[in-house]
């Protein structure tokens, strides 16, 4: 992508517009972005490997700390896989409590995103308002689970805390205030001229591209992709609850804002239904320390998109393999596409629009040469071509699959 007319500038790993260390190498022609190279790996913490060295109960708290904002998402996703392997029948009430916390988490995540988006476009008043209202839901989470961020409500076979009637009423009261505030935010997002003009046409991702690049969550739904794990492959108590999947036709950052604020309204409806339908009974069942051998893949609709966990167990107290695919990893390819041919000034908001969490995403591959006594870090491109070669040598050709897929989009 480099030629003599282009100017290549590095953005990050430390940059005031990005809160997390991630390096973007931007090729510029004047103000226009010609191409972006994303370098992952600055925040790599080796959580997957660390999980293999700890017991399932310890893993829960480690997995919960993959991300501070979707902490319940990751722990529920992991625990669903473990419970499936162990064949545990989780009590209904526990599933409802998990759903309640999941939706409260979505509210707090979307409000946080709204504030960050306001900040990135220089609309700090919106940041202050959104984050002040976010305190209401943070206090509710602290009240229900005992902590504001890493809730620690899940345990293998259920949840750790019950919800009393007074707490449920407090939640309903908080929801009422938040609903009014969200109505105001919908008004701001749809009617405020600054927001509309600043965000419209920025970071365009068409329907076809969203499908092709495997975008997930609000990023995909803003491109009119009607996908939501909560509805399509329902987990926890979502099977009993009626809600609508919000989609939007704008295909840009403005559309993503609208999807997020409208999803807040759906979340309030879900919480009301959960509290109304919540059955009585036990909140957890006793789980064995040793999980029988087996493997499971679990999906979960985190506030940012589909979260996938794969757990393999070998019959001991510790898992043999834990694989986490956080939503940002699925969306990061879309960012590259969204930035191409756009202006440099749009970069912070386009990156912020997928609500990135780089510490969830970071991957690192090192090659060890036992003979040469040397290690080498493999780049993302090299890894990509390596994986294509690896599959091709085993007789799997992605070209045919790609062709089939693009035909399906057209048809």
């Amino acid at each position, binding site marked *: 992508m480099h030629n003599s007319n282009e100017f290549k500038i590095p953005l990050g790993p430390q940059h005031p517009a990005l809160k997390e260390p991630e390096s973007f190498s931007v090729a510029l022609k004047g103000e226009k972005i010609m191409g972006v190279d994303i370098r992952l790996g600055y925040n790599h913490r080796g959580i997957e490997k660390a999980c293999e060295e700890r017991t399932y109960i310890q893993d829960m*708290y480690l997995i*919960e700390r993959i991300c501070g904002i979707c902490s319940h998402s990751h722990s529920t996703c992991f625990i669903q896989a473990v419970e499936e392997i162990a064949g545990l029948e989780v009590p209904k009430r526990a599933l409802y409590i998990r759903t309640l916390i999941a939706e409260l988490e979505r509210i707090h995540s979307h409000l946080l995103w709204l504030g960050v988006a306001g900040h990135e476009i220089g609309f700090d*008043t919106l940041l202050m308002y959104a984050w002040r209202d976010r305190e209401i839901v943070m206090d509710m989470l602290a009240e229900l689970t005992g902590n504001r961020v890493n809730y620690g409500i899940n345990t293998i076979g259920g949840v750790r805390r019950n919800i009393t009637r007074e707490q449920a009423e407090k939640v309903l009261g908080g929801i009422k205030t938040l609903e009014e505030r969200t109505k105001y935010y919908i008004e701001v997002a749809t009617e405020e001229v600054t927001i509309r003009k600043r965000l419209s046409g920025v970071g365009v991702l068409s329907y076809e591209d969203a499908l092709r690049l495997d975008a997930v969550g609000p990023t995909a739904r803003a491109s009119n992709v009607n996908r939501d794990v909560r509805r399509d492959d329902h987990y926890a108590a979502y099977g009993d609850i009626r809600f609508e999947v919000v989609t939007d036709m704008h295909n840009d950052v403005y559309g993503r804002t609208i999807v997020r604020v409208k999803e807040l309204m759906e979340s309030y409806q879900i919480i009301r239904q959960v509290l109304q339908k919540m059955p009585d009974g036990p909140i957890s069942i006793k789980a064995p320390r040793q999980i029988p051998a087996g493997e499971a893949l679990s999906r979960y609709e985190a506030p940012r998109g589909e979260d996938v966990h794969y757990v393999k167990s070998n019959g001991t107290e510790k898992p043999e393999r834990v694989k986490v695919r956080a939503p940002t990893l699925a969306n990061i390819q879309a960012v590259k596409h969204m930035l191409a041919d756009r202006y440099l000034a749009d970069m912070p908001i386009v990156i912020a629009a997928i609500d990135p969490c780089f510490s969830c995403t970071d991957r690192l591959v090192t090659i060890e040469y036992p003979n040469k006594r040397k290690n080498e870090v493999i780049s993302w491109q090299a890894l990509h071509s390596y994986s294509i070669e690896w599959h091709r040598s085993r007789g799997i050709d992605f070209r045919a699959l790609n062709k089939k897929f693009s035909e399906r989009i057209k048809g």
Partner: protein
Amino acid sequence: MLKEVLNHIMKKPATNLYPAQKLQMPPGFRGKLKFYPERCIGCKLCMRDCPTQAITINKLEDNKFEAVIELDRCIYCGQCVDSCPKKALESTKDVELTQLDAHKLRVVFRAQPENNSKK
């Protein structure tokens, strides 16, 4: 937006004046751990379940145990409180754990003489 701005001109800030005005922690908050040596039976389940190995139970003599809790390692998940079969551990609402000296974050709960918690 202007309406909102005018509304808030006369209002107090939404933030708390922290050191002067302290927040009330909700019931069930997971703060600093407290250990009751007289209840401990030395099963060491808390040690086994702790994700960060922040707690160590040492045997002093028969049925006498001490707990060493490293507060800088503890992630305040409260799993040890759940795991303990005799309720010898408890989460308090104490959140102000800031120290300049890292050694002060190692807290020892010993049975004799009388709950001597070295701070």
